[in-house]
């Protein structure tokens, strides 16, 4: 029993200390700040997301996930599409 509890505690600790991920995606069509609020709000609603930064001149959105969490390419594409845009290239950093 003690071993099980210890294993759970260690796994939980490892999960919490897992690094956050920084994901940057280019977004085609994102030229208007008023309209880009939709992309920021939709990403912020995702439980895995910690911060969202919109860079209009570079047409990029940078998302930082919560520690130990990630967002799949499919999910990013869904959010970008639901916000009315077309997704470009994705770059991931740990």
């Amino acid at each position, binding site marked *: 029993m003690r071993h099980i509890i210890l294993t759970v505690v260690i796994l939980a600790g490892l999960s919490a200390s897992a690094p956050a991920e920084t994901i940057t995606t280019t977004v085609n069509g994102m030229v*208007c*700040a*008023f309209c880009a609020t939709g992309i920021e*709000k939709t990403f912020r*609603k995702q439980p895995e997301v910690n911060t969202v930064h919109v860079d209009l001149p570079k047409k990029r959105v940078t998302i930082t996930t919560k520690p130990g969490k990630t967002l799949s390419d499919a999910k990013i594409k869904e959010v970008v599409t*639901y916000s009315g845009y077309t997704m470009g290239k994705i770059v991931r950093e740990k």
Partner: protein
Amino acid sequence: MKTIYRLFFCLVLTLAVALPAQAKPLSYVGGTMVMQENDETGYTLSVDYTFDPHFALGLYAKYEINQREFYMAGPELNTLIKRWNLPDGQGNIFSMTGAGIARQGSNIQPAAWAALLADYETRRWFFSYEPRLVYAGDIESSFWQRAYAGFAPYLANYDDLNTWLLIRADHHPAKNDHFVVTPVLRLFYKTIWLEVGYSSNQHVMVNWTVQF
């Protein structure tokens, strides 16, 4: 002076129609937009909820004061027909259709309206064109068209106050002023949008939109 306005209107219209286009009666899925317009034609209020990337459902109401006074209100469906997401620009074609009632004094008639809205914008340039049909029995039966053309004097980032200088041209064949031109200052910051202008027939225009 009127000839200059007409020539400018033709130029604006030509520019707007010559380009692929977009406009925003839709926001993002789950987003709600409240739009209110006050201009020489009257006072308009619409509230739209975007429930799909291509559709928004809302309520539209207008108190018309241009030549004749009447109220018109009803549900409206806004549809994104086509969008072009380009690396440095975006173009759209939308339709707005609605049906409800119109009231002029004690006269109440069924009403329907349909519009197309096309626009194209980059971070520097904006063009739009909107033709609209309104039918409300013997209260109102008209066609009008509107075009915008303008530019951003500086390229603002997402967190900045965005400023645009535009010319709006309205053509109302069935109304007193067939051609009305309005220089417009457009400001927006995050989810708040404001437009102010002063028309060639000496009316103040104030439009605002809030998105949440």
